């Protein structure tokens, strides 16, 4: 059982504030929360919504329809009303009518806020009424208000606390009738984290020992550098570069000089970084690049979600060189994968790309724990002062050479984007050095492959249909499997979060495979078909800018039943 609460309004109107307050209060109250945000690429006006799904235990998957719709303005009410389920309730800002239309209720948020002396309090009032609607106590909301506003000033916090209480009272006074929906039982863990993918990627980078991040702002990746810049005690030097080309070249310079370094961007920015990605491959300098996907081509839909850059990320860069491609499924995984990306990039001296998307980047997930103790940096730098002369690209059985950084000791470190010899100097020795260097670099890819974790299996025993997905669709796919299983259908799932090098897998025999992915051309299915010879008998693909839901997957399965 779950409940979907949608808060809709214009950009700049406070959708996010209401959504965050309500999400935290709901978690405090004992619900598991998943909050998906969708918005237009503008600063003011237009339409945006925060779709908060309350469940008994963490599902961490989006639902796009609404049991309760709070519309902050009349246009939002009109635009989002089609999401409302037949037995749902539309709550709007206005005078509480004596005989409201069935399925609707109005409460005077704005007028009450003005009476309180601050129009901006309308949002906190609305969050209060929404909480009251679900029978939440004031304690949960108070704590949410304190967490969100407590850092500002005592005055702001107190004003918001008062407004939240007033919002609860407003709802009680209005006596909203016709409640047909039901809230799920409150069974969420007694302690949980509520955080977005971007929060987790930033903290994961810090936990990995990242010391340098340069990036150019681009949705939906910007919050990563923002979080690191805001919290200087995380120890990461941050710089807003003049463009993505500078961003990645700065990070590569920093990495060659010994710092664990990263950048983050989205498709268009990644396109600008591609030449330097190839440089990272050539100079064997570790770097972590977060590629937060949004729909393309070109500028596409800047604030929406898609899984459309998989094959681009895999093939980006001229020439042949190994790379690591990880696609975390949720913020817990994102935290762990960031540490893993830094460690593996360091050990194998390769670029690591962490594929995120707007769904993962911006959504609030409920997580019972984070692997803070387990995910630790494993530095792979060599020690200076070995037998001279030091050679940055010394040939070795697995292709990995001892790596020193500039100025680490008295050994001179030479890295070159030209084909080079073991010492790092230019070479045109076509018969000898060139093929050996090509093979050296590619051997690292083979060694890296042995590190890759197999895909996660879910309800795979005896499954007749296996849903195959990657990255942020994990929650929706598991939910779809559960729903089919309760109906006695033998459905399971295979989920990949480590995409390249592809791990060795033993695929169940006799099942039909259905690829689930957020793009139009079935990129992951094509990759698995070519690498594993896997034949897919169906596909669920979404490319309208919204995330894949369990409902969508089920519709897809039914269409092929």
């Amino acid at each position: 059982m779950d409940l979907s609460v949608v808060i809709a309004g214009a950009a700049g109107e406070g959708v996010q504030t209401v959504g965050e307050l309500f999400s935290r209060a709901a978690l405090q109250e004992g619900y598991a929360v998943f909050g998906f945000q969708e918005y237009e690429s503008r600063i003011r006006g237009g339409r945006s919504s925060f779709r908060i799904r309350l469940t008994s235990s963490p599902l961490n998957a989006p639902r796009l329809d609404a049991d309760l719709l709070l519309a902050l303005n009349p246009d939002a009410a009109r635009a989002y009303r089609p999401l409302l389920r037949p037995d749902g309730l539309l709550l709007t800002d206005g005078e509480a009518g004596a005989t409201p239309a069935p399925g609707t209720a109005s409460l005077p948020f704005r007028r009450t806020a003005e009476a309180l002396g601050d129009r901006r309090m309308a949002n906190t009032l609305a969050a209060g009424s929404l909480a009251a609607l679900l029978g939440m106590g004031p304690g949960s909301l108070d704590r949410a208000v304190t967490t969100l506003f407590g850092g500002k000033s005592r005055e702001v916090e107190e004003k918001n606390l008062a407004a939240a209480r007033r919002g609860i009272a407003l709802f009680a006074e209005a006596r909203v009738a016709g409640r047909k929906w039901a809230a799920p039982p409150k069974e969420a863990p007694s302690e949980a984290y509520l955080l977005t993918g971007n929060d987790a990627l930033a903290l994961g980078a810090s936990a990995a020992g990242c010391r340098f991040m340069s990036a150019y702002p681009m949705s939906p990746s910007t919050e990563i550098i923002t979080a690191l810049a805001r919290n200087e005690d995380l120890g990461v030097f941050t710089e807003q570069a003049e463009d993505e080309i500078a961003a990645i070249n700065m990070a590569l310079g920093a990495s060659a000089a010994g710092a664990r370094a990263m950048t983050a961007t989205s498709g268009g920015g990644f396109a600008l970084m591609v030449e330097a990605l190839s440089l990272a491959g050539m100079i064997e300098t570790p770097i972590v690049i977060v590629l937060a996907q949004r729909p393309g081509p070109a500028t596409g839909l800047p604030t929406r979600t898609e899984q459309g850059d998989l094959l681009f990320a895999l093939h980006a860069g001229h020439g042949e060189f190994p790379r690591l491609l990880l696609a975390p499924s949720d913020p817990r995984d994102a935290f762990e994968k960031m540490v893993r990306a830094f460690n593996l990039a360091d050990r194998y001296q390769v670029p690591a790309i962490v594929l995120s998307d707007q769904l993962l980047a911006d959504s609030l997930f409920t997580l019972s724990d984070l692997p803070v103790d387990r995910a630790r940096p494993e530095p792979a730098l060599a020690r200076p002062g070995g037998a001279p002369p030091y050679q940055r690209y010394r040939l070795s059985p697995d292709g990995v050479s001892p790596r020193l950084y500039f100025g680490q000791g008295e050994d001179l470190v030479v890295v070159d984007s030209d084909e080079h010899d073991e010492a790092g100097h230019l070479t045109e020795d076509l018969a000898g050095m060139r093929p050996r260097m090509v093979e050296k670099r590619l051997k690292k890819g083979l060694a890296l492959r042995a590190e890759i974790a197999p895909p996660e299996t879910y309800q795979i025993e005896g499954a007749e249909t296996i849903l195959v997905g990657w990255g942020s669709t994990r929650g929706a796919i598991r939910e779809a499997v559960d729903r089919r299983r309760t109906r006695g259908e033998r459905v399971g799932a295979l989920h990949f979060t480590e995409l390249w090098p592809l791990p060795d897998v033993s695929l169940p025999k006799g099942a039909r495979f259905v690829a689930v992915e957020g793009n139009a051309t079935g990129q992951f299915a094509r990759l698995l078909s070519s690498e594993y010879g896997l034949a897919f008998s169906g596909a669920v693909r979404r490319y309208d800018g919204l995330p894949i839901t369990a409902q969508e997957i089920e519709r897809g399965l039914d269409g092929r039943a």
Partner: protein
Amino acid sequence: MGEPDLFKSGVENQWCPGCSNFGILTALQQALGKLGKRPHEVCLVSGIGQAAKLPHYLAANVFNGLHGRAIPAATGISVANPTLTTIVTSGDGDLYGEGGNHLLHALRRNPNLTVVVHNNELYALTKGQASPTTPLGEKTRLQFQGVEIEPLRMLAVAILQDAPFVARGFAGEIPTLSEILVQAIAQPGLSIVEVVQPCLTWGAHPAAWYRERTAPVPANHDPHDREAAIRLANDRERIWIGVLYRGTPRPVFASRYHDRTGRRPLAELPPLNPAEIARRLEPFRVKRTDVKEEKP
């Protein structure tokens, strides 16, 4: 005075015999020696082109990266290891053309770098096309009717942006150039040294033509006088050699971070311990039990 041969590299040189780049190489080796630097304390950063091969011919750490991207790479290096002397040596096409935007933003950032621009007024490695500094009207192997767009006067731009140190050198005058480089390297923040580097193979004029047109910066020139410096930088009759400008002292890029970390290489900083990470996660944590206790 350091050992003169300390910075000699055994790598085979690919420049044309007699190339004026050799003058810049010698001047740089001398300057580093005069400053008492050791090879491992120096990192040379370059892009692509004949000039960009210089780092291989001098014993030091080397980052020979992508065309046009030496400055961002060097910026990252100077932040990650502030104990290094980081020097960019690349051509006019690399630093003013392909990477021009990065130089503009380096003028804003003021990283602790010395940027040596080998200015031969053309693209040599690609066989003689115009560069951002080729004079108007000069015929090249691509601009057959003569260059029709204005050359970029980057030193004037650097002076306008109040760069800490702006100088012009001549590759044919090694003692002066090496003295300029000593001052440039010693200057905290961004130093730009544009070196007139006649190309013997593709250039429109022999080295002597340039030598006739050079003159030392007038003895009475005040390098703090911005307008006078711009006039010298923009003079189309004379090529003034020497220190043109010294900007207003201002913080070096990343100095606030370096002050906090004791100017140590970032690689030496201890990683955050899990307790600190856990503390940072506190704002994201919601404890349900606390609420229950609060309820009446």
